[in-house]
């Protein structure tokens, strides 16, 4: 009984103290910062990521406004074949006399469309499959994971090449193929996060409160799994840009006359172009490297900014 007495006394003596004490402690250490605010603040510290973001913003603006900013019609065939860079054509012209700079700007549209479009598809598929697989477990999980294993067993580029050779090369097909074959990484990632998040008591509380399964999946689990998905998607964009460029370079992606950085490089396979006409292959190659590098930096910055472990 002594114990009982003691604890009541103690409780009475310090009644409500918990709330007040902790409140002051909380106020001094937290500046009422939202999660998004914290991510932005930490992202800004990653200088390369900020630089990447600036470059990609400029590139996107250029791509959107391409029709108004290009010096020439990118499809206009002129008689100035393979002209060296000049005041008229800042980056020269290609084999059929089209302005390289204008084509370069238009090609940014292709890269961004492929990057965003295919990742939108692949991340959506991957997220839904990963959520379902991780949350329900059992047979569903096993089936989804085996299918993932199967798709992961094909070297991606090889499978893409084969599918392209069957369905035919085009911008739409490239987006669809990259999208429908690229979901495996996201699926595994989301499944992994779901497996750990579903053990959290707030998910159990949701079940105990009678919230429906879709609500728990999409309103409680998904928002907490979003950080790795976003990082994965960013790196996915970089990967898709490279894949499109490689496919187009090999003649199996975006078809001329539509300009893509990859297909602008195709001609560099001839030794004359490679040795004596660097303006034809260097600019698109540099654009690919710069944009992929920028996106990768953004991904790295996001990963650092959203990683709960690296609280700087």
């Amino acid at each position, binding site marked *: 009984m002594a114990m009982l007495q003691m604890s009541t006394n103690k409780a009475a003596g310090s009644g409500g103290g918990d709330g007040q004490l902790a409140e002051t402690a909380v106020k001094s250490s937290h500046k009422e910062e939202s999660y998004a605010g914290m991510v932005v603040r930490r992202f800004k510290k990653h200088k390369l990521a900020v630089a990447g973001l600036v470059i990609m913003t400029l590139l996107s603006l250029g791509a959107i406004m391409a029709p108004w900013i290009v010096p020439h019609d990118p499809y206009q065939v002129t008689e100035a074949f393979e002209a060296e860079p000049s005041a008229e054509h800042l980056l020269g012209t290609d084999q059929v006399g089209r302005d390289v700079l204008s084509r370069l700007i238009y090609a940014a549209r292709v890269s961004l469309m492929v990057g965003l479009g295919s990742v939108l598809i692949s991340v959506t598929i991957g997220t839904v499959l990963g959520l379902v697989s991780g949350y329900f477990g059992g047979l569903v999980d096993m089936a989804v994971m085996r299918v993932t294993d199967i798709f992961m067993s094909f070297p991606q580029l*090889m499978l893409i090449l084969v599918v392209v050779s069957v369905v035919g090369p085009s911008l739409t097909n490239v987006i669809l193929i990259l999208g429908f074959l690229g979901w495996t990484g996201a699926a595994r990632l989301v499944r992994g996060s779901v497996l750990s998040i579903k053990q959290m008591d707030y998910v159990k509380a949701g079940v105990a409160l009678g919230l429906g399964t879709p609500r728990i999946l999409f309103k409680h689990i998904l928002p907490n799994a979003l950080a790795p998905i976003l990082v994965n998607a960013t790196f996915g964009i970089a990967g898709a840009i490279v894949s499109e460029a490689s496919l187009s370079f*090999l003649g199996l992606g975006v078809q001329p006359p539509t300009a893509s950085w990859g297909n602008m490089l195709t001609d560099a396979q001839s*030794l004359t172009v490679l*040795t004596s006409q660097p303006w034809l292959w260097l600019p698109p190659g540099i654009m690919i490297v710069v944009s992929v590098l920028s996106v990768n930096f953004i991904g790295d910055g996001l990963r650092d900014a959203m990683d709960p472990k690296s609280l700087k």
Partner: protein
Amino acid sequence: MLAYIIRRLLIAVPVLLGVTIINFIVINLAPGSPVEMMIDPNTPPADIEAKKDALGLNDPLYLQYIHWLVDVFKGNFGFSLTTYQPVAQMIGERIGPTVTLMGLSFIVGLAIAVPLGIISATRQNSKLDYLATGGSFLGISIPNFFLALGLIYVFSLELKLLPSGGMITLGGDGGFVDRLKHLILPVLVLGTGIAGKKIRYVRSSVIDILGQDYLRTARAKGVREFMVVNKHALRNALIPIVTVIGLEVPILLGGAVVTEQIFSWPGIGQLTMGSIMNRDYPTLMALNLLAAFMVLAANLLTDIIYSVADPRIKYK
């Protein structure tokens, strides 16, 4: 342990079957049936009808699939539509060069990545660290084909030091030095990609290990920093590096297609590109199966190595 290996093998069976199904479906979307392509093209036209009947070309798709699968198991991958050679033979001739290329690229990639990653991790935020990190990002971001073109431009066309393609100099002696010279550029292209990815991986893996308590203990006992890193940390840091080796195989195989195409390297990558251009579906199917098989085997091997190397792994 044995049960674990058997289990992994058993899991691989349905996956491999799935691979064959997807392969079959994809190729079936193409004009012409894969079974049809299995017929020896030297058969006289009169016999073809009979053969088609015998092969059950009018059977439902799943029966055709089973037929094809049985053939594959017997090692009969059909005949190439372009060279009329048995596909198995064509692949057999070309697998050697690709394995050489991939293996060397792998070794070169790791030889660059492991020391750079360790230096980067032990001197965090130094100039060297930034340089290594920047280099690794460049390695990840530069597409194989652009790097290949750049290297050819510099080393073959401008400096005229190295050949721009092929496996041996035509009409040359085909000796060791000659072969080595032909290997350098393609290996550098594929190795750069590997190194780019692995530098960051080695770095974070070593940083993780260096923060562990048992290393602090080693330091507290007065073990020199060099020994701490190379004796105590490295061994444990290398385990996670080994485990991702298997993941590189599909990427290397994909990279081999582009790289072999540019350097006219007579391996399965170049064969893949040729088969795609010529719509040589029997060859493509076999190549895809082979690639998937290699990936599965690599994954299996890594899992087994991992379980041996890391005693904490449970064979579940």
